[in-house]
């Protein structure tokens, strides 16, 4: 029954192979970078694609709010006549959040990491950039027609 409903959906979804490979990339990010409490991959219109959480987060809500924030920040950078807003870092009292654009050619996405307060930002950004480059390659590999 579920398969029947799924095949009737017109939702644009990542390929199964992409999901498997993307999960690997997220694993790599978490293990290579200390201080990450959660990482989430979502579509630019706010649907969760994949996630690894060390805490109890609501992936659906994080995806929606995160995509909204990045789009608003991109609108702000446009108004400030700057180009290419790639990421935003939020500094909370007890942790940080980084939201980055994943500029896939076919299925554009965003990546969100939630970290502890005491982290090396440079390390987080380096890890994110590496993951993003990998994800963009995977999109090219699995979503080209």
């Amino acid at each position: 029954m579920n398969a029947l409903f799924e095949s009737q959906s017109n939702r644009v979804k990542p390929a199964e192979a992409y999901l498997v490979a993307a999960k690997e990339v997220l694993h790599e990010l978490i293990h290579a970078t200390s201080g990450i409490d959660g990482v989430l991959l979502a579509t630019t219109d706010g649907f969760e694609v994949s996630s690894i959480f060390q805490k109890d987060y609501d992936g659906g809500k994080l995806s929606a709010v995160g995509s909204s924030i990045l789009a608003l920040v991109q609108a702000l950078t446009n108004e400030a006549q700057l180009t290419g807003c790639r990421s935003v870092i939020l500094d909370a009292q007890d942790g940080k959040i980084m939201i980055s654009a994943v500029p896939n050619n076919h299925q554009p996405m965003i990546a969100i990491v939630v970290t502890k307060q005491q982290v090396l930002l440079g390390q987080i950004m380096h890890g994110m950039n590496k993951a993003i480059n990998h994800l963009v390659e995977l999109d090219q590999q699995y979503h080209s027609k």
Partner: protein
Amino acid sequence: MQRLKIVFSGPMGAGKTQAIASLSDIDVVSTEVLNTDLDAHTKALTTVGMDYGELILDEGTSIGLYGTPGQERFSFIWPILSQGALGVIILIDHSAADPVQDLARYLATFDKIYQGRIIVGVSQVDRLPERPFEIYRNWLLENNRNLPIFPVDLRHKDDVLLLVETIITALEQG
């Protein structure tokens, strides 16, 4: 400069972004991205943050036009954008599957988050002319809601202006 605020909300595809684009005297700030939810609507782009435009009335006054995203998962932003608004315009797509249900749902939600004036604009009436406009008036009567409701072509500035003017008139009448 005195800055006033009017919010456009309503379901996906009703025409909020277009309404603001038709009315705005400035280039509209938008947050449109690729729409992957083709089950909900087949349009290419969808708003995920907000639209912002301005209607300049005279030298001293302008009205900020704020468009909300339509999809339910962005409903967290509706109370944020509605705060301090002169009025909320709920746009409904006449050609959607159940536009009366859409209207009921949006009114129920906005009743909880916004206490000011709400008016309703019904778009795309020409796409389904066999569906009578009375369905909205009947529902409003049955539910004791006395709200202004108009069919509008959101491509036409004057139609959208009518909605804005209705809010201002309602305010002046107290």
